[in-house]
C-alpha cells in the first residue's frame, strides 16, 4: 500500500525545492576547512605505508622483515594474511606488507628493506584478445539467452528452429550489419585514495574512513577485528570520490586498526596513487561481435551477439542479462557472454555498473546501421523506440525519449549540423561529426532514517547516517527541510557522516537523494504538524488552515493570524522537539520513484592527420522526476559528462602483455580529460509535470552512461569509419583510418 500521508508541493508553490542555490558547505570546501579522511591527523599518529606486489602472478616464497624492522623510525611491520609464504598473488599491486613508522619517509624506506622471494607464475592480462584468452584457458562461458518472436512448433527441435529462424530473419532483413565494438577497462581513479585513520579508546575503535557507506562499514570493521559492532564508530565528513569503489573498509583498513591495536597508537594508512589504481577498483572491459538485421525503415528485427568481458582476476564482468543490447529490445535476439580471467585487480561497481559499457558496444552498432542506410542516426534511434503502447525498448517510456531527443536536437541544432557519415566538409585535415546515444537507470530511494531536532529557539538540525559523496547531499537535505518548514535553507544544520547516526543506506545506485528526501520530508512534515497543533491552539484556528512559509506559520493570506517561526518554536517548551523520519527501500511512496531516461548528443572535430579528437559541443537532456537541488543536480550531470568524455577519449588501464604490469598506474600516464578537452557542455533537465509528479529519483549515475557511445558515433559520422574500441586515442583513430584505406 502506498503511504499517501506525505506529498510534495506543486511546482508553482515551492519556495526551496528545485531552486538553484549554493551549497551550504561550499565555503567550507572551497576554503579548505572541510576535513577529508586524508586530512585527519591525530595526536601521536603513526604513518603506515604498504608494499604492493611488483608481479602480476606469483607465489610468495619467503618474507624477511628483520632489516626493515631496524630502519630508524619504523615502529611496526604487518604482513598481510593473503601474502604469507606459500600464498599465490593474482595481480600486481596486491598488498604484501604494511609498515607503520614515525614518518612517511621512514615507512617507505622500511618497505624498501623487506626481503621477499617470489616464484613467478604464468601471466595473462590481454582481456581484449578472445583467441589468446581461449588459448591460455582463461575464457569461460558466462551464459546467454535467445528469444524469437515466433514460437517453435510442438514437433520442432528448439535449437534447429532458432537457427533456421535466425537465418530466415537475416535473409529477410534489408540491412545486415556485422560489427565489432569494445571498451577497455578503466579505474575509479578517486582523487582521494582509499584508506583510513584509526584510533582505539580502550576497546572501542574510531575509524575515519574514506567511504560511501558509513552506516554499513562499522559492521565490517567489527567482523574483521572480532569485536562488537557497537564498539566501532566510522566517520566520513567529506570524501574525495568513491564512484562505487568505497563500500568497505577493505583489508588494508582493517589492517590499520590491527596495527593501531598492536602499537597502541593511532594509525593512518592511505593507499598511494599507484596502489589506488591497481587494487582499489576498476570498471570491467567489454568487447562485442554482433550481427544485426533491420527492415527497410531501419527497425532492428534480429540481434545476434557474443561479448567477452573481464572483471579481472576474480572473474565477473559485464553481464549479457538486462543490458545487451542496451535499452533497445529487438523481438528476436540471441546473446552470449564469455568471461575472461586475467591477472589484474578485481572489478568494483563503477558509476552505473555495466551500463556505460553496454551502451558503448551496442549503440555504436545502431549508428553503423544508420551509416549503412545513409540515414540520419537520430531518425534510426527514433524509429527503434516504438510507442508507449508498443514498446521496443526497456527503461523510460518511448514518449519520454522522443521528447528528450527532440529537445536535445534543438539544443544541438542537430538538423542543421547533420551530414551523412563521412560526407562532411573538411577544413584542412579537420572533419566534424554528430552522434547520439540514450540511457536508462533505476535510482529508487534507499533506506534512510533521520532524527530531526527543532529547538525552542527556532534552530533546526538533523542527524542522518548518510554521507555526502561530494554531490551536495547536505544541501539537498537542507532544501527539503526548508521547503517543508518554510524557513531558509542556509540556517539548517545537517549532521551526517557517522555510523553512530540513524542508519541510512550506502550511497550507491543513485539511491541517496531519494532516501534522504523521503526520511526528511516525512520527519519535517510530522514535526510541522506537531508545531502546527501548538500554533493553532495559540491562535485559535484550525490546524489544517495553517501554512508554513517565509519563516512564519499562520493562516494563509491572514498576516494577523500567524506567528513567526521562532515564536512558534517557543511553544515547544523547554526541550527540543525530536522527530524521526524513516523510509524503507521498496516502499511505494508518492515522494519518490525510480527509472529515468536520458539522451546525449556529441559534436566532435577530428584531425584526420593526427587522429586527435576534440569535443566541440555536448548536449545532455535528462529526466530525474522531481528536482530537489537544481544546481547540484546540474553539477552531477556536468561531472558525469566530463567523466564520460574522459573514458571515451583518454582513460584506459594499460596492462603490459609481456609482464602483466599495470603500466599507467600513475596520473602522469593515466590520462584524464582536462578543462580544455570537454568543449561546450549544455545540460537540460527534462522536468514537465508528468515527470515531476513522479517524485524524487536518483541522478548520479545515468548521465555517465551515454558519452562513450555518443562520442564514438560522432567520430564515426565525422570520418565515415568506425573506430571500434574506446577510448578513441589518436593511435586507434589512425589505425582505423589505415585499415579502411582512408589514411
Amino acid at each position: 500500500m502506498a503511504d499517501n500521508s506525505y506529498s510534495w508541493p506543486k511546482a508553482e508553490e515551492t519556495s526551496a525545492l528545485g531552486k538553484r542555490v549554493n551549497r551550504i558547505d561550499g565555503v567550507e570546501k572551497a576554503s579548505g576547512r572541510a576535513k577529508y579522511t586524508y586530512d585527519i591527523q591525530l595526536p601521536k599518529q603513526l604513518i603506515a605505508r604498504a608494499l604492493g606486489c611488483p608481479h602480476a602472478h606469483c607465489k610468495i616464497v619467503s618474507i624477511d622483515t628483520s632489516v626493515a624492522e631496524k630502519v630508524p623510525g619504523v615502529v611496526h611491520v604487518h604482513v598481510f594474511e593473503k601474502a604469507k609464504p606459500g600464498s599465490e598473488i593474482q595481480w600486481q599491486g596486491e598488498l604484501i606488507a604494511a609498515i607503520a613508522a614515525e614518518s612517511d619517509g621512514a615507512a617507505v624506506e622500511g618497505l624498501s628493506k623487506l626481503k621477499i622471494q617470489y616464484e613467478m607464475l604464468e601471466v595473462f592480462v590481454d582481456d581484449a584478445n578472445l583467441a589468446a584468452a581461449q588459448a591460455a584457458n582463461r575464457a569461460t562461458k558466462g551464459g546467454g539467452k535467445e528469444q524469437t518472436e515466433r514460437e517453435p512448433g510442438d514437433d520442432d527441435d528448439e535449437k534447429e528452429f532458432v537457427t533456421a529462424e535466425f537465418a530466415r530473419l537475416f535473409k529477410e532483413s534489408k540491412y545486415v550489419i556485422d560489427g565489432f565494438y569494445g571498451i577497455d577497462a578503466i579505474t575509479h581513479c578517486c582523487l582521494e585514495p582509499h584508506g583510513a585513520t584509526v584510533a582505539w579508546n580502550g576497546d572501542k575503535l574510531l575509524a575515519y574512513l574514506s567511504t560511501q557507506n558509513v552506516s554499513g562499514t562499522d559492521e565490517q570493521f567489527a567482523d574483521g577485528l572480532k569485536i562488537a559492532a557497537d564498539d566501532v564508530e566510522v566517520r566520513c565528513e567529506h570524501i574525495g570520490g568513491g564512484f562505487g569503489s568505497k563500500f568497505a573498509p577493505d583489508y588494508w583498513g582493517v589492517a590499520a586498526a590491527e596495527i593501531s591495536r598492536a602499537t597502541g597508537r593511532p594509525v593512518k594508512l592511505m593507499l598511494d596513487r599507484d596502489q589506488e589504481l591497481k587494487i582499489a577498483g576498476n570498471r570491467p572491459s567489454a568487447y562485442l561481435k554482433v550481427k544485426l538485421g533491420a527492415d527497410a525503415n531501419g527497425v532492428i528485427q534480429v540481434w545476434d551477439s557474443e561479448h567477452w568481458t573481464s572483471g579481472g582476476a576474480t572473474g565477473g564482468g559485464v553481464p549479457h542479462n538486462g543490458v545487451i543490447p542496451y535499452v533497445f529490445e529487438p523481438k528476436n535476439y540471441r546473446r552470449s557472454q564469455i568471461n575472461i580471467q586475467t591477472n589484474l585487480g578485481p572489478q568494483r561497481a563503477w558509476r552505473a555498473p555495466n551500463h556505460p559499457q553496454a551502451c558503448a558496444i551496442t549503440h555504436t552498432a545502431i549508428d553503423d546501421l544508420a551509416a549503412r542506410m545513409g540515414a540520419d542516426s537520430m531518425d534510426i534511434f527514433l524509429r527503434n523506440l516504438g510507442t508507449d503502447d508498443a514498446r521496443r525498448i526497456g527503461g523510460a517510456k518511448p514518449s519520454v525519449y522522443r521528447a528528450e531527443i527532440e529537445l536535445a536536437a534543438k539544443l544541438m541544432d542537430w538538423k542543421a549540423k547533420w551530414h551523412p557519415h563521412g560526407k562532411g566538409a573538411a577544413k584542412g585535415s579537420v572533419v566534424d561529426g554528430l552522434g547520439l546515444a540514450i540511457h536508462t537507470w533505476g535510482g529508487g530511494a534507499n533506506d534512510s532514517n533521520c532524527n530531526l531536532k527543532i529547538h525552542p529557539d527556532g534552530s533546526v538540525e538533523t542527524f542522518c547516517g548518510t554521507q555526502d559523496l561530494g554531490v551536495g547531499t547536505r544541501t539537498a537535505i537542507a532544501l527539503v527541510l526548508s521547503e517543508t518548514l518554510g524557513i531558509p535553507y542556509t540556517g539548517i544544520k545537517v549532521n551526517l557522516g557517522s555510523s553512530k547516526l540513524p542508519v541510512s543506506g550506502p550511497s550507491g545506485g543513485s539511491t541517496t537523494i531519494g532516501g534522504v528526501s523521503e526520511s526528511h520530508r516525512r520527519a519535517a512534515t510530522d514535526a510541522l504538524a506537531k508545531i502546527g497543533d501548538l500554533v493553532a491552539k495559540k491562535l485559535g484556528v484550525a490546524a489544517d488552515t495553517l501554512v508554513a512559509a517565509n519563516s512564519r506559520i499562520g493562516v494563509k493570506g491572514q498576516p494577523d493570524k500567524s506567528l513567526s517561526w521562532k515564536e512558534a518554536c517557543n511553544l515547544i517548551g523547554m526541550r527540543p522537539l525530536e522527530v524521526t523520519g524513516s523510509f524503507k527501500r521498496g516502499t511505494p511512496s508518492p515522494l519518490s520513484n525510480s527509472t529515468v531516461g536520458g539522451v546525449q548528443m556529441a559534436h566532435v572535430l577530428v584531425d584526420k592527420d593526427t587522429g586527435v579528437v576534440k569535443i566541440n559541443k555536448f548536449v545532455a537532456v535528462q529526466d530525474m522526476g522531481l528536482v530537489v537541488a537544481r544546481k547540484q543536480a546540474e553539477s552531477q550531470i556536468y561531472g558525469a559528462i566530463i567523466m564520460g568524455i574522459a573514458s571515451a577519449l583518454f582513460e584506459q588501464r594499460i596492462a603490459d602483455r609481456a609482464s602483466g604490469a599495470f603500466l599507467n598506474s600513475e596520473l602522469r600516464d593515466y590520462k584524464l580529460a582536462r578543462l580544455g578537452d570537454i568543449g561546450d557542455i549544455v545540460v537540460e533537465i527534462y522536468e514537465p509535470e508528468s515527470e515531476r509528479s513522479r517524485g524524487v529519483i536518483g541522478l548520479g549515475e545515468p548521465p555517465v552512461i551515454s558519452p562513450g557511445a555518443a562520442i564514438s558515433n560522432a567520430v564515426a559520422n565525422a570520418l565515415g569509419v568506425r573506430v571500434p574500441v574506446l577510448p578513441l586515442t589518436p593511435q586507434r583513430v589512425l589505425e582505423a583510418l589505415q585499415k579502411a584505406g582512408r589514411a
Partner: protein
Amino acid sequence: MKNFEYAAPTTESEALQLLGDSSVSTEILAGGTDLVGLMKKMIVTPDRVVNILGIPSLRTLERRVDGQLWIGAAVTLDTLLDSPYLAGYDAVTQAIRGINSMQFQCQGTIGGEICQRPQCWFFRGGRGLLGEGGQAAANGDNRYHAIFGNDGPAKFVHSSRIAPALIALGAAVRVIGGAAGRGPDGADGEVGERLVPIAEFFQTPRHERQRETILAPNQLVTHIVLPSPAGIANATYEVRHGEGPDYPLAAASAALRMDGERVADARIVMGQVAPTPWNTVAAAALLRGRSIDETVAEAAGQAAVADATPLSQNAYKVQLAKVAVKRAILAAAGHPTGGF
C-alpha cells in the same frame, strides 16, 4: 623516500664542491617537479641533494651585445614566458606554452626541463633506465617509445619539450665543473667551464651507468645560450592527445633562415621520437632553396621519417612525427597548419 643530506649552496663553486664529493651520490634539485617524484618512488636515491635555486648567477636572464640570450639554468619557465627577451624565439615560447600547466611553468626551470629524466613507464616503474636492457620495451607495451635511434638498449624517448627548439635555434649549454682540463680554461683545480652545442649535450645511454646527457655527476649546467633569432623563422608543433600537461605523442621544432621567399638554411628537430632530440638532416636538406608551401612541408615531413624504425606497437608515431615536422615548418613560415 630514502633519507638524504640537503645542501643549498649560494655560489657556483660551492655547488661544484658539493657535487664533486665522489663518496656520496648526488642529485641536483631546481624546481623539483621531476626529481621529487622520482625520489618518492625511490627510482633515484641520492645521498645528497644539492638545491641550486639559491645561486644568484643561475637565475639571471641577460641579452648580450652580440645578440645572444643567456638564460640561467634556474630561471623558471613562466619567467621566460613573461620576458620580452623571448621575442623572436617562437619555437621556445610555443614549447613552453604547450606544457599547459601553470604549476609546471611556475615551478619548473629551463635547466631542469632539458635535464628531466625519461617518462618511460618501465623506467618509472623501477625497471631501470633502459628497462631491463631494452627488453621491457622491445617485448612489452611500447606505444609511446622511440621510432628512431632505438637499435640499442635505450628505447625510451627523450622527454624535453624545449630541447628540440633549442637545438633548432643553435643554442649552447654552459657546463661547469668536472671537466677540468677539458674545458677552454679548465686547468686542474679550477672550475672548468665550456660551452657545449646543445645538440651534443644529449646522448643515448648504452648501459645503466650512463645518463641521457653528457653531464658528469660533478658537473652543473649554469646557462642556456641562444644566438640572436634575427632572420630565423621558427616554430614548434606538438601532437598532443588532449589539452592537459601530458607529454606530446610527437613534436618538431623548425628554424628556417630565410633568403627572401626561399629557405637559405634550415634545422628541423623532432621531439618525443628518440632517446635524444632527433635532428633530421634530410628534411632540412629538402627545404634549402625552396619556398615553403604545403607540398614542400609535406615532402619534408616525409623525408624526416623515411628512416624511422618503429617498434611493435608504435608505427602510428611515424605518421605523427611526419605531421609534426610538416606543421612546424608551415607554422615557422607563417602558414596555417591545416589541423588543430
